[in-house]
């Protein structure tokens, strides 16, 4: 489904590569977790796959399509849930969703029905006509998610979709994503919540300093790593305990 070949990325004026010769194959209908410490290169990789930034070298394809040749087709195929709330604060949830749905060519009653369906599913129907700037962090995350899946994308990229939300919101989001996956959506997500990734992802890759350290099914990685009882142990054993602060 997603074939990443020798992708490298070095930002202007940066001393080091954010991604270095990364190769990865993500299969259709997988829930693939991209894990790594701060500054490991997770968001950079997702941004490249969503055509937000250009790789310094290497190539990738999604469903055998590339941005160079099939830009609009590919954009129609993917959805992205950015780490920031990419919503207009002064518009209501419904207005935001209607606008972003329209950008995929969706319109009329069908779009409105879909918006209502998803809002209801994520417990937001009562707030459909409230402005986003009155929403809590968890509510904004859920609207942010709906805005990315109205067009039924085949591939959904999520950059830390549960960061800063309460347990209830997190569970609703995870259940919603699992249902999407059951209906055929391939999910690629980044997270710092390793327990969440362990139960949620069918496969994970741990990247650090822009390089792929390891990949595989969570349980296989735990089994392979001596003395590890969970994914967090594996993560610490591979990336170390040193702080990863970046200025």
């Amino acid at each position, binding site marked *: 489904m997603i074939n990443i070949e020798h992708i490298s990325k070095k930002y202007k004026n940066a001393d080091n590569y954010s991604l270095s010769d990364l190769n990865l194959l993500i299969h259709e209908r997988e829930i693939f977790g991209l894990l790594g410490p701060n500054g490991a290169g997770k968001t950079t990789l997702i941004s490249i796959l*969503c*055509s*937000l*930034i*250009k790789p310094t070298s290497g190539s990738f394809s999604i469903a055998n399509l590339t*941005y*160079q040749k099939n830009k*609009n087709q590919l*954009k*129609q195929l*993917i*959805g*992205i849930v*950015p780490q*920031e*709330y*990419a*919503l*207009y*604060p*002064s*518009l209501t949830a419904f*207005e935001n969703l*209607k*606008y*972003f749905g*329209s*950008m*995929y*060519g969706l*319109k009329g009653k069908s779009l409105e029905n879909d918006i209502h369906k998803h809002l209801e599913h994520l417990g937001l129907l009562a707030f459909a006509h409230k*402005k986003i700037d009155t929403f809590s962090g968890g509510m904004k995350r859920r609207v942010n998610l709906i*805005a*990315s899946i109205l067009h039924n994308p085949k591939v959904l990229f999520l950059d830390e979709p549960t960061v800063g939300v309460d347990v209830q919101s997190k569970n609703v989001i995870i259940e919603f994503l699992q249902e999407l996956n059951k209906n055929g959506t391939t999910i690629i997500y980044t997270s710092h919540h390793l327990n969440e990734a362990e139960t949620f992802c069918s496969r994970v890759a741990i990247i650090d300093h822009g390089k792929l350290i390891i990949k595989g099914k969570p349980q296989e990685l735990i089994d392979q790593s001596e003395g590890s009882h969970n994914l967090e142990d594996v993560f610490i054993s591979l990336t170390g305990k040193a702080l990863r602060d970046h200025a």
Partner: protein
Amino acid sequence: MHKLMASAHKEFLLLIRDIGGIAILFVMPLVLIVTITLIQDSTFKTVSDAKIPILIVNNDRGNVSETILKGLEESNSFEINIKDTEKIAKDLVFKGKYQLAIVIPEDLSLGLEQKVAQNVDRIIAKFGLEEETNSSEKSISQSKEVKLYFDPATQLAFKSSVKNGIDKMVSKIETQSIYKAFQEQITDDPTETIFETENYITFKEILPKENNKELIPNSVQHNVPAWTLFAIFFIIVPLSINIVKEKSQGTFVRLRTNPVSYATILGGKTLVYLVVCLIQFVLMLSIGVYLFPAIGLPTLDISGRLPLLFVVAIFAGLAAIGLGLLLGTIAKTQEQSAPFGATFVVILAALGGVWVPVFIMPKFMQTLSNISPMNWGLNAFYDVFLRHGTLLDILPEISLLFLFFIATTLIAIVYNEKKNAV
């Protein structure tokens, strides 16, 4: 088309949710136009209760000083205060208490009378009408100086106009004195009219006519188009902030992943902000037509010109929007776009001739003025408002404004594509 209309609808919603922004967009230009017109109108007409207080030191106390004082009083522009000494007057002016002090020298009337009499005597003698006197024996009166003290803060235009006025007054007094001296030499009867002292050469301003009615431009006809254009161009500030905000709040990132072109996103903004420009324009015209006469200003005459005025407003609005789109695309923060946008509009206005007419600018600035879209807009408005031009007359200006919109928008699109190319 659906995406364009959805974008326009979103822009409309964003705009109406920002009440403070709307107030600034619509109210501030109105405040600006009323204030400027009120100030400038007083320079177009004589207002009795707006006399400039000036000081006079009259050391002459003769006919000439009386005539000067009478002339100043009759001009209805000055409130005359008499001071005893030059020093007092000078100190008051240099401290900024008064803008002008006029010091009339001692024996000005007597000196002028003597000088004219000497000259007339000589002329008469040359014609052999009188015995020639030995001119070398008579001392020629020295020329006298009327001193003008201006407050250093006084503007040059005011100084020039006062100097010209006094110069004209003095010339007239001299001429009349010469006529009077001749009259006294030629006849003993002071009631006999020998010379016609009225000016032979006079001026008449010929104004354009419509239906045999003379069209007299007033301060409102000048100010409304100029400041309306200024307000229209100020749209670049909120528009560029709108674009920068989208970048900072993350919605632009989402839009970049959506199958929608940057041109469509900008198209939505263009439609809504063009409507904003036109509403601004209608409000400005309404102020000119309805409010100005109510507060004692001349009425804005738009009769028969409304369609053409709207044509100019649309194209001027497009040019301003193009500039706003470009600025918003290039700027990274609101701190960059807002001050730059505001200052740039002021520069464009200055270059465009909103404050100072282009024809009095230095040559280099006149050339620069030709590339200011505000100059094209202002000329088009003046063509319609003051020169009663047709669509054909304004075609060059509105074409330039449209080309400017196309060019700036294209640069914005290309810049965005280059910057975000994958």
